[in-house]
């Protein structure tokens, strides 16, 4: 029983990261109508700037800031491509473009970072925060979940209490009508891409030491992130937050059961499948009748 609890708690760090990446995916989808498959790759680019600077001997916290700045810049660059050339495209075309960008970022990233070559990723927040039922809960777990919850609360407040948030909601509803009212659509869209780039980078910096820190592995964290976003049906920040944490916990539990531990990376796919089937149940039922 204690082993299961330990595994579940161990999954909290990953869960917090999935939740934060998922909330960023929902934020991007709700405000600029893009299912962003390149989200984690953008954060990975920033994370590898941190790794490169750290390996070159630079002090850690300035390197973290430089990495976040780089992740923000890559997010803005991807956003520029999407708003400059694909603003009028349909949702599926936009999603396909982000898949292409994901492949491109991974290819460039692997080339620049030496492929599968192991890197020395500093642990930003080592140690234990507290004990839960006899199990150590790491500072990294608390931070990733806290960051995800903070981003969720801030997103809600930002969208509902500020003029910029109001303009973003208008932009999400009818981009052309918003632009016709003089709203600086491109600037606001780039703001969304930059914000999600910064938060994604910081989340990946926290989780990277626990993963194999190569460009491919971190970039593909987009899969559980989108699974979490799907739990929130790409609308609800809070459901996405809960979905991401639950996904991490289930993965952690699965790792403690020998017979299924090797299949735990398939769990996000199963969640995606289950949510899609569940969300389509009424249509299927009507068809069956």
């Amino acid at each position, binding site marked *: 029983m204690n082993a299961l609890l330990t595994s579940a708690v161990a999954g909290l760090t990953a869960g917090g990261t999935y939740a934060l990446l998922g909330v960023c995916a929902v934020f991007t989808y709700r405000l600029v109508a893009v299912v962003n498959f390149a989200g984690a790759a953008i954060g990975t680019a920033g994370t590898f700037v941190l790794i490169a600077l750290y390996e070159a001997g630079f002090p850690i916290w300035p390197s973290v800031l430089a990495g976040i700045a780089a992740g923000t810049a890559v997010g803005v660059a991807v956003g520029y491509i999407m708003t400059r050339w694909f603003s009028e495209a349909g949702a599926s075309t936009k999603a396909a473009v982000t898949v292409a960008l994901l492949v491109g970022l991974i290819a460039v990233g692997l080339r620049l970072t030496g492929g599968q070559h192991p890197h020395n990723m500093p642990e930003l927040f080592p140690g234990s925060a507290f004990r839960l039922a006899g199990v150590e809960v790491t500072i990294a777990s608390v931070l990733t979940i806290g960051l995800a919850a903070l981003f969720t609360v801030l997103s809600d407040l930002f969208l509902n209490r500020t*003029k910029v948030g*109001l*303009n973003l*909601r*208008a932009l999400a*509803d*009818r981009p*052309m*009508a*918003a*632009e*016709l*009212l*003089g*709203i*600086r*659509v491109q600037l606001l869209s780039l703001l969304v891409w930059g914000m999600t780039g910064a938060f994604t980078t910081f989340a990946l910096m926290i989780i990277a030491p626990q993963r194999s820190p190569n460009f491919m592995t971190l970039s593909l964290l987009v899969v559980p992130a989108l699974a979490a976003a799907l739990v929130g049906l790409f609308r609800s920040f809070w459901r996405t937050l809960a979905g991401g944490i639950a996904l991490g916990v289930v993965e952690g539990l699965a790792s403690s059961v020998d017979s299924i531990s090797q299949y735990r990376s398939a769990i996000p796919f199963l969640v995606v499948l289950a949510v899609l089937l569940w969300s389509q149940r009424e249509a299927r039922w009507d068809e069956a009748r």
Partner: protein
Amino acid sequence: MSKLVISDLSINRAELPVVSSVDMAVESGAISVVLGANGAGKTTLLEGLSGIIPVAGGTIAIDEAEIQKARPGARSRAGLAHVEQGRTVFRQLTTEENLKVSLHPSADIAEAYALFPELVQRRAVKASLLSGGEQQMLVIARALLTRPKVLLIDEMSAGLAPVIVSRLMTAVRKLADGGLAVLLVEQFAALALSIGNRAYVMRRGRVVHDGDCAGLLKAPDELHRLYLGG
């Protein structure tokens, strides 16, 4: 005194000419009415003016400043407001939030409620739940709050009851009397001519008549001939 001047304007859709060599002018305090059968190029003209689609040639100037190469947002900031066809309210926002989106620093939401008092009771209601007439009032009021010099209005009567259309026409006349230059595209020719000053009739993308509204209102046969050609 503000003035919108359109010179030799051409607009293509999918590389096919839809509007060709159009010259028009609208001055503050006046309503210019654009009439024509379906497919005459009226909506394309307004979309080209506001920047929704690019123009192929010619110039668009507000107070002598050319805007034909600017993005829609920049044209709005230059003083052009476009009330699109189809009542484009922000559906998930309330009436008041819709008005706040467009609120110019020198404007006051009270101006919108003064123009359409019907909206006061509906200020906290989601725009998607408003009636068609209320939605049309909202988009006109929203455009007003951007502090425009020129207001383009496309088919505001579409799908609305005559009593509501009449109410909207009165409001638009009031806006023009307050100093706005209004370019009104309308299918209800008689109603539009009754509030307008200058009338343009378009056929197959070209202006085939340019005259005063009163004259055209008294000659329905002439209007019919202009619509259909011959």
